[in-house]
């Protein structure tokens, strides 16, 4: 019985161990915590990818580990392990590798695993709540200055409201359907349409809760402030994990047969997505803080993902592969982007501005190349993995045949491409008065391997390997979507 839940137990054990380690001042904030968090994350990942053969299926009602879930778990673990590795020898190292923070990081990962592996409404809600609470804490805890606390407080207040509305919606759906399993709920809702006054209300409330998590309009206003205020490791982790989590949930809902139920909602989805991408693209033009720009980019990326999700019910198997590929490309680009920003920050330069990046290409060429690759990938410049995902996005949008959507996506893509490229140009414009760089990142043996492998992945997946990757992903998606 415990064999199947071994990886989760390892994560729990890890969080307890690091919490206990925080009690001893000799260990707290030093190597011991780094070693233990990486150790537990690594072992847990191994057991997720190669699970022990389990004899009993006690928890199988609420916990199923198939290859589709393993893919998402792999992406999440890789994110956290890379970000922790990049945080070693950064300026916030002592604060990040404090026992309590390490413990909350592992708990947040645990909560996301719960959501990904389960189709039970109660477990999903529990996981989402735990995730939100963990991030509320992480956003403000590591760097306790006023600015950080303000961002965390905004996130906390809005997040609590969203969670309350979410639980209201979920409970209404449970009341209408009478069961907690997602597939049974959907079939119940389809078969008995007369309990309908509560179903639209419940679905709407649920949608608002998820839109908050996924940073879609009208609940996207917390994103820029919180991302700017949090320490960069948490920003990166929050950005990647919320997109992965909510996309996983949305795919579960859509693929369990909610297609015909969801069709009246597509007008609402169109409106939500349209407002999000327009908002993100236009407002990103006037930003100067790099983390805010990345926040707006996350909003527009989640908007684009939702568009591809909208074509999931009505279109072919290719849409599932497109979505997963989009997620992989987003993960890789964000790891590179946030990782480099983490390395460049120091005590005097806490929130990087565009002006700080001026002339980076001539002082620190490798960092500039890394940021260029990350931004080019987010923008969709060819030879990066983001280009392939942009192709998938446009095939999806055109497939939906809505001229307004096509026009919106084209214009917003144009605007956002332009402002990413402007940042890249900025790095290559040198300031003649500046002789040496104002950044002096402490040397770290983890930074180079992680960043180089992520950049190489971004380029290889955009040029030689997309076909191979899609072939690897395809069987997982097909089994999930039950397409022959």
């Amino acid at each position, binding site marked *: 019985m415990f064999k199947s839940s071994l990886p989760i137990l390892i994560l729990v054990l890890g969080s307890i161990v690091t919490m206990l380690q925080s009690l001893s001042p000799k260990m707290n904030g030093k190597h011991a915590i780094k070693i233990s968090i990486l150790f537990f994350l690594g072992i847990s990942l191994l057991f997720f990818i190669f699970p022990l053969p389990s004899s009993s299926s006690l928890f199988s009602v609420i916990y199923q580990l198939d290859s589709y879930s393993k893919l998402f778990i792999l992406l999440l673990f890789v994110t956290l392990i890379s970000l922790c590795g990049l945080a070693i020898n950064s300026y916030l190292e002592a604060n990040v590798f404090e026992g309590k923070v390490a413990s909350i990081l592992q708990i947040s990962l645990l909560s996301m695993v719960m959501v990904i592996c389960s189709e039970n409404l109660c477990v999903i809600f529990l996981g989402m709540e735990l995730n939100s609470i963990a991030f509320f804490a992480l956003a403000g805890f590591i760097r306790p200055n006023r600015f950080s606390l303000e961002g965390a407080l905004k996130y906390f207040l809005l997040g609590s409201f969203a969670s309350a509305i979410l639980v209201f919606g979920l409970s209404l759906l449970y009341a209408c359907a009478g069961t907690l399993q997602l597939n049974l709920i959907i079939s119940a809702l389809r078969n008995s349409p007369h309990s309908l006054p509560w179903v639209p209300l419940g679905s709407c409330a649920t949608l608002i809760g998820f839109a908050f998590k996924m940073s879609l309009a009208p609940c996207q206003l917390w994103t820029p402030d919180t991302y700017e205020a949090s320490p960069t490791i948490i920003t990166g982790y929050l950005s990647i994990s919320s997109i992965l989590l909510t996309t996983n949930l949305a795919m579960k809902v859509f693929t369990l047969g909610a297609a015909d139920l969801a069709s009246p909602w597509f007008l609402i989805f169109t409106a939500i997505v349209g407002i999000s991408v327009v908002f993100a693209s236009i407002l990103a033009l006037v930003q100067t803080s790099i983390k805010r720009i990345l926040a707006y980019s996350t909003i527009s990326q989640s908007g684009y993902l939702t568009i591809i999700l909208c074509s999931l019910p009505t279109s072919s198997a*290719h849409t599932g*592969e497109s979505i997963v590929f989009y997620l992989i490309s987003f993960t890789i680009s964000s790891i590179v982007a946030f990782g480099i920003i983490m390395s460049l920050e120091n005590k005097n330069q806490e929130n990087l501005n565009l002006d700080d990046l001026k002339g980076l*290409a*001539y002082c620190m060429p490798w960092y500039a190349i890394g940021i260029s690759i990350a931004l*080019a990938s987010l923008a969709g*410049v*060819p*030879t990066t993995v983001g*280009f*392939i995902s942009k*192709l998938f996005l*446009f*095939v999806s*949008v*055109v*497939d939906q045949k809505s001229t307004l959507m*096509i026009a919106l996506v*084209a214009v917003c*893509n*144009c605007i956002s*491409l*332009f402002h990413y*490229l*402007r940042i*890249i*140009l900025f790095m*290559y*414009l*040198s300031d003649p008065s500046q002789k040496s760089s104002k950044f002096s990142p402490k040397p770290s043996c983890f930074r180079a391997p992680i960043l180089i492998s992520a950049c190489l992945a971004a380029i290889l997946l955009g040029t030689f390997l*997309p*076909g191979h990757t*899609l*072939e690897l992903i*395809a069987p997982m998606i097909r089994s999930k979507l039950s397409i022959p």
Partner: protein
Amino acid sequence: MDWIYAHIISITTFTPLIAAILGLASVNITLSRWIFFFGSFISFLLSCFIWLNYSETLPIGQFSEIYPWLEHFGVFYRVEVNGLSLLFMVMCTFICPLLIMCIWDENVARLKTKLALILILETGMLGSLTATDLFLFYFFWEATLLPIYLIMGIFGKQRATHASTKLIIFNLFGSLLLLIGICNLYLAHAREFGFYTSNLQDLLNSNHLDLFTQKCLFLSFTLAFAVRLPFWPLHTWLLDAHSQAPKIGSAILSGILLKTGAYGFLRFSIPLFPDAFNYFSNFIVGLGILGAIWSAVAIYSEEDTGRIFAYASISHLSLASAAFAITDAGRLSVETISGGILRIISNGISMSALTFLLVFIDNKHEAGKQNANTNNAACTPWFTLCLFIAGIDLVGLPGTGGFVSNLILLLGAFNISFTKGGVLSLGALIGALAVLKLCKKILLLSTQSRGNQFDGLEPMEKLTVMPLLIAVIAAGCHPQGLLSKVRPSIDKLARKYQSHFMLKNQESSSHRAPTNLNQVEFIQKGGQ
């Protein structure tokens, strides 16, 4: 050896990219310069090899390579050479080594970046010329945007940011329209035939779109190419780009980048959407000639060298594009298309030559500030010769490629229709006036500098610019050499176009029931 022969197009396309990466990675400036030069020179040699081994009797697409890229989605890495791409390829690889030689001795600090960006641009251009898979074509098309933006933005003059912004917005919008058109075509094919493919051949063979869809898709493809060409009224980005760009950026733009627009129009817009092309052809001719005359007149109000340059470019290229669109009753004219292509090629070579002359004048400006030698009577024979040859090529006087191109173009146009021929010749005439202003401006610049430093061309500079001018004269004396390789593809294009309309006329005539003999005769004549 066999492996090289089998992959020669890929090697030609990617050698500049590999040279760019190697050159950037090496620390010694001289070594990187030589690496960059050899990269582009090897590419040139390989494209000459392809040129010599391209057979006019075999089927059109040769040296093809196919690799799976996104197999699930039906997208493959498919490259092949046909006559059109061959000519543009050779021109592109011919100009690039000369570009590198032209800026050999520049400001050392950022020379490596500039040269690397030029080579990456060359790779993108060569790739887009040889790709036959629509998504692959789009890949290389977009890949040229970032390098030109960086060249313009980093190395430009005072208002470089403004110019590069305009460049990127115009071109991005065009590219996204192209992408939407490609996606539409891809999905329409999949809906009709059940399998996904973005191969040009498949999409050509299965082309049964209705007129409205064809018109929309034709517009989306053609607007993208029209922005790149540029075509009036989408030309304003080029004015700022040429005026604020580094001179070498002008050479790249006029010599290399703008030709992709013309190539794309011939290769994709016309074959894929013949009905829509027929519908819009008069409109395109009208706009092209309007653009040619407009630019030629507007050039006289300008004083900035870059803008004069841009207007001359626009005038010539608009005329060539108008020539492509000359069609009547389902017949494409092979002569006008050949003439237009030759005009574009010779325009590219001459404009690059003129740009090089401007670079040489600038170099002398910056180099010697205190030159006691104020021998104002110093002659500059080579400079004048180069200017003269490039000028008469652009104007279209005999002995140069420009003359031959004008001749063939107007011959074909008059063959099709007297009015169109007349209007085109008017456009050519007024375009020639534009060139006069350009040459006058360059002479003025050289005279102004002559007082101080400019006293002729260095040997290295002569070596850089002479190949271009020899090419111009060779094109004028032996145009058959250039056109013989292109001719089969243009013939095939015209044949397919004509047969498409003949089929349509036959279908429509078989549906009509003639009521009297006169009508029967009329239908039979119309089907010819």
